[in-house]
């Protein structure tokens, strides 16, 4: 097939042009999402308007939006460390669950410890819980080259089934009259509020800065990037690739585990099987949109938290299923993934006549190639 344009690779795109392409693709994605909503008989302007008012319309709604931004951002940081290495950790949900499980185990058995001791203990347990859950696939990847995508994903189901088992079995609250729930934490195990928001936001901000500095200014962070860019380069430079994979995945899983601790402590006040709420998956989208940059991740996650909170709100206000968020998220990322093409390649209009001539390998009249 002969097309009237020519595609050539280009090296780098000016920053403002790259930003323009990104914004344009998000706008197009929102327009297409609107068309999809229209198709289902919904008024897109009303739906998008309600998402905005539902997420920012009052102090309480802003608080709800931020409460969603905290786990999403920390989870995205965890995904970022793995993705930078091109280790496709899609086991975030399971790592969150196992972090929550470990934190809950500490909280339920040591409820009378004072908060300043109990909360850090829970955090450490959660980091270990999530980290170990991520290390299992990482070990197989590092030692044998086992496919990590399916492995990490299967670990999600196992973790969720395990917590469900605890909730309906050995950890069931005997005082709940047969209702399958795990006993609530003591007050000491609940993260305190700081300026009207649970203290998870402080952890989030510290971690954004820490991951940014780690990835950009430390040797280990650099090594993770090199392993992601080219395994051969990493080996040629004498890096211990296995060790780097293990370290990076402990950090990745540890951060996701910490999400579990924050959610169990500040939101649920206990362990539930639905605790991860899809944050481990949404974090894949936000991390990729933020182009694996920790600072950008924070802002992308704030925007996506608006979308999540707004979607919850339209379920109540307009009786529209909140799963609409999944569709909009998907469409946005489709467009951004597609738009990357225009950052990496130059599409040049050359007209059909010249395209035919070039395809036939004929010498060109007056149209010197660059």
């Amino acid at each position, binding site marked *: 097939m002969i097309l009237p344009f020519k595609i050539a690779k280009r090296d780098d795109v000016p920053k403002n042009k790259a930003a323009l392409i990104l914004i344009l693709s998000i706008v197009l994605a929102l327009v297409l999402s609107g068309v999809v909503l229209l198709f289902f008989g919904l008024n897109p302007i009303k739906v998008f308007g309600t998402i905005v008012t539902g997420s920012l319309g009052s102090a309480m709604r802003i608080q709800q939006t931020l409460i969603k931004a905290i786990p999403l951002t920390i989870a995205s940081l965890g995904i970022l460390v793995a993705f930078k290495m091109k280790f*496709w950790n899609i086991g975030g949900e399971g790592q969150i669950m196992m972090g929550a499980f470990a934190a809950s185990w500490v909280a339920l058995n040591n409820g009378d410890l004072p908060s300043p001791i109990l909360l850090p203990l829970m955090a450490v347990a959660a980091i270990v819980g999530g980290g170990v859950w991520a290390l299992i696939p990482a070990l197989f990847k590092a030692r044998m080259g086992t496919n990590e995508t*399916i492995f990490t994903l299967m670990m999600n189901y196992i973790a969720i089934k*395990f917590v469900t088992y605890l909730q309906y079995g050995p950890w069931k609250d005997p005082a709940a009259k047969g209702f399958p729930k795990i006993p609530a934490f003591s007050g000491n195990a609940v993260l305190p509020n700081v300026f009207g928001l649970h203290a998870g936001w402080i952890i989030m901000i510290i971690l954004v800065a820490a991951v940014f500095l780690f990835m950009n200014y430390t040797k280990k962070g650099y090594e993770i990037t090199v392993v992601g860019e080219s395994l051969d380069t990493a080996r040629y430079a004498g890096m211990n690739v296995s060790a780097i994979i293990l370290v990076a995945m402990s950090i990745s899983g540890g951060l996701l585990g910490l999400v579990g601790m924050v959610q169990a402590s500040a939101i649920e006040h206990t362990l539930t099987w639905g605790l991860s709420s899809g944050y481990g998956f949404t974090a894949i989208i936000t991390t*990729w949109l933020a182009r694996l940059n920790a600072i950008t991740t924070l802002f992308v996650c704030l925007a996506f938290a608006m979308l999540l909170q707004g979607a919850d709100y339209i379920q109540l206000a307009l009786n529209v299923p909140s799963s609409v*968020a999944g*569709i909009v998220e998907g469409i946005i990322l*489709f467009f951004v*993934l597609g738009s990357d*093409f225009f950052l990496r390649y130059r599409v040049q209009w050359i007209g059909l006549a010249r395209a035919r001539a070039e395809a036939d390998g004929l010498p060109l009249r007056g149209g010197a190639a660059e």
Partner: protein
Amino acid sequence: MEAFLAASIVAAMPLLFATLGELITEKSGSLNLGVEGMMLMGAVIGFITAFYTGNPGAALLGAFAAGAGGALIFAVITVTLRGNQVVTGLTLTIFGTGFSSFVGDPLIGQSVPQAVQAYFAARPIPGLGDIPFLGPVFFRQDVFVYLGYVLVVLVSIYLYKTRFGLNMRAVGENTAAADASGVNVDFQKYAHIVFGGGLCGLGGAYLALVFVPMWQADVVTGRGWIAVALVIFASWNPTKAFFGSFLFGALSILGLRLQSMGFQISQYLVDMFPYVATIVIVILSTHKNRKEDLPPADLSVPYFREER
């Protein structure tokens, strides 16, 4: 035992369709991790079509089209726009999950119409169905299952005995060489990604129309990912894909059988079986040395003629 194996075949069908779909996609050189999403899209559209038309043929067609449509998005982004295959596939899964729970929301708890259920009831094949042991296991099933058998044979013939199949494998093994010998690379990739997606859609539809048969959110529950693992387990071979699906079908209902035989195991631990087994299979499949067991050489390698 016969009843258990016959039920295993039924449980294997969604896996078989999805595994064959992903197998075709990967043979042509693309790794589409959106199987779970495409199955969900096929499930919901298949169910809705069945629910409103009562026509089983239309339901299958709708399911195929929905899976193929999801795959088409993947093809545009990864083939034409050269986007990252892993992330695009993951996005397709997230999109498909949102799509199916959004579109299916008003129908939660509704059953498949009687006419469609009757169409997909077991229909013994005269003669074959009377063979001792094999008959009750394989040949007293529903039409969907027979379609699955036929598909295994057709895909095998297509891959290994036809010129089309040879061209397609050439693209997956060595894209540049296939291109140089005049095979239309983009067309091959598009065609097989889209057809493979259609099969994934049918796999999802089997769950919603025959296996359950009513609408519930997230009917697929990880089977799409198990299918991705089964492709590796089956060494990209359709016949082995059949036996792999059969094995996993058996595993997924094993827990129920054990419980009904009086073993005291928590349902939630039993539910872990297929997922643990998938991990074991992925680990065991890691070390493969025989040439015919290896993945297509150019699997998930982006191709741009001018870059070579």
